C-alpha cells in the first residue's frame, strides 16, 4: 500500500511535468517539419474528419490500412516512437478488461474456450476492431494535435469559429495548469518533509482533501487578482479579438486535399 503511495507521488509528478514537458518539448524546436507547417485549424479539422471516418470503418483490412497511415503521420510529425507506444499502451485498464470480455459475451461461432467458457469469433473480431480504432485515433491525435503547441490549438479552435468564450477558457486553463502544477508540487514537498506518506486511511484522505482544498482557495484568490490585473490594463468586459489568423497557404491546401483523398479512399474500402 505504501508502495502504491510512493508510486502515486511519481505518477503525480510525471503527470504534471508531463503536461508541461509535453507542451515544452516543441517550443524550442525550430526545425518545423511539414506537418507542423500546416495551419493548426486545418490540422484540427483534418484530424476530426479522419477520426470520424476511422470510427465508421468496419473492415479489418481498411483499419489496418488506417493504422499504417496513422503510423506514417506520426513519423512525418517526428514524434518519438516511445511516446507513440506509451500512448497506445495508455488505454484505460478498464477498457482493456471490457474488450477482453467481448469474445465471451458476443454470441457466435466458437473460436476457443477458456475454463469451459466459449469465446466467439465475432466477439474476437469486434474486440480487435475496437482496439485498432482506438489506437488509430490515439496515433492521429499524437501526429496532428499533440505535435503543436497547445496554445496553437486555441488558435485552431478560433479559426474553426468555436465560440470565443470557449477558446478563452481553453487558453486560460492551459496557462494556469502550469502555475497550479508548480504550487501543487511545492505543497506536496512540504507534506513529505513532515513525514506524510500516502496510505489507505482516513488521515491520508483528509490530508489530500485539505491539499486540494487549499489549492482551490489559493486559486480562487489568484483568479481574483487576475481579473484585477486585467482591469488595470483597460479590460472592460470584452476581450479584444485574438490575433488575426494568417491566410492559408498552398501547403494547407495540399495537405487538406491529400487528407480528403485518404479519407475518401478509406471510406470506399472500409464502409460496407
Amino acid at each position, binding site marked *: 500500500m505504501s508502495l502504491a503511495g510512493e508510486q502515486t507521488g511519481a505518477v503525480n509528478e510525471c503527470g504534471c511535468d508531463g503536461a508541461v514537458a509535453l507542451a*515544452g518539448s516543441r*517550443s524550442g524546436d525550430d526545425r518545423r517539419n511539414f506537418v507542423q507547417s500546416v495551419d493548426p485549424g486545418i490540422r484540427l479539422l483534418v484530424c476530426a474528419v479522419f477520426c470520424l471516418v476511422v470510427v465508421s470503418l468496419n473492415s479489418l483490412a481498411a483499419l489496418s490500412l488506417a493504422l499504417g497511415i496513422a503510423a506514417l503521420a506520426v513519423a512525418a510529425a517526428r514524434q518519438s516512437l516511445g511516446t507513440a507506444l506509451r500512448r497506445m499502451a495508455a488505454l484505460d485498464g478498464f477498457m482493456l478488461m471490457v474488450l477482453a470480455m467481448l469474445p465471451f459475451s458476443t454470441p457466435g461461432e466458437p473460436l476457443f474456450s477458456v475454463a469451459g467458457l466459449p469465446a466467439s469469433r465475432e466477439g474476437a473480431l469486434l474486440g480487435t476492431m475496437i482496439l485498432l480504432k482506438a489506437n488509430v485515433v490515439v496515433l492521429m491525435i499524437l501526429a496532428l494535435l499533440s505535435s503543436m503547441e497547445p*496554445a496553437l490549438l486555441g488558435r485552431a479552435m478560433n479559426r474553426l469559429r468555436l465560440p470565443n468564450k470557449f477558446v478563452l477558457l481553453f487558453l486560460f486553463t*492551459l*496557462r494556469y495548469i502550469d*502555475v497550479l502544477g508548480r504550487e501543487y508540487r511545492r505543497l506536496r514537498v512540504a507534506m513529505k518533509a513532515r513525514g506524510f506518506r500516502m496510505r489507505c486511511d482516513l488521515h491520508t484522505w483528509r490530508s489530500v482533501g485539505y491539499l486540494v482544498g487549499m489549492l482551490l482557495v489559493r486559486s480562487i484568490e*489568484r483568479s481574483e487578482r487576475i481579473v484585477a490585473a486585467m482591469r488595470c490594463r483597460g479590460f*472592460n468586459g470584452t476581450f*479584444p479579438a485574438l490575433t488575426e489568423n494568417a491566410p492559408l497557404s498552398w501547403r494547407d491546401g495540399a495537405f487538406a486535399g491529400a487528407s480528403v483523398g485518404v479519407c475518401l479512399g478509406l471510406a470506399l474500402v472500409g464502409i460496407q
Partner: protein
Amino acid sequence: MSPELLRLSGVSFAYDRERPVLRGADFVLHAGERVAVTGPNGAGKTTFLHVMVGLAKPSAGTIEAFGKSRTSEGDFPEVRRRAGLLFQDADDQLFCPTVAEDVAFGPLNLGKSRAEAREITRRTLARLGLQGFEDRITYKLSGGQKRLVALAAVLAMEPEVLLLDEPTTALDTETEERMVDILNSLPQAMVIVSHDRDFLAKVANRWVRLENGALREAASA
C-alpha cells in the same frame, strides 16, 4: 514644487472588520519622485497600491488622482490607464498565451488598432531588451523574464506613473541589475514597494515606511 499626481488622504481599508489594514493613511506623489515603500510583511503595501488604482475600495478617506477626486468605480478606469501597476506575482499579470498578445492586450483595450498595437509591442519589448520574445509562450518564461514581460505590458499602456509591487522578487542578480538600469532610464514618477534595500537605494529618491496602517516619511535606510 512639481505637480501633484496622486493624493491619498485619511484612507482606511479592511478586508475583514477586526483587522484593518490601512488606518487613515496619507500619501502624496509628485512628478519626478521615485518613492520607496518599505514595511513588514502583511503591513498592507500591496493593498495600498491597489487602493490607489481603485482595485480595493477604502471605507474612509479620499483619493485624488491626476487633478480630480476619484470616488466611484467609473472614475478609476482612467486612473488605471494613467498609473500602471506591476503586480507582486507576475503569474497573475500574464494571462495571454504569447508575449506579444499579452503586451498588446492593454493597447488594444485602449482602442488602438491591431497595427498600432503591434508596433507599440515591438517598441516596448525592444526597449527592455526583449527583442525576439514576441512569440514565446508566457508560461514557459523564467521568473525573471516573466517580470520583465509584465513590466513591458505595463509600459505598453504608456502610463504617467508606475506602481511597482516588489519588482525584484524572483530576479537573479543579473536581471536585477537590468531592472535597475531600466527603471533609472524611465521618466515616470514611481512608487516602488520592496524589501530589498540595496535595490531601493539604487532607484529611489524618497523613502516612506508603512507600519500600523499608516505611512510616514523615513530616512533612506
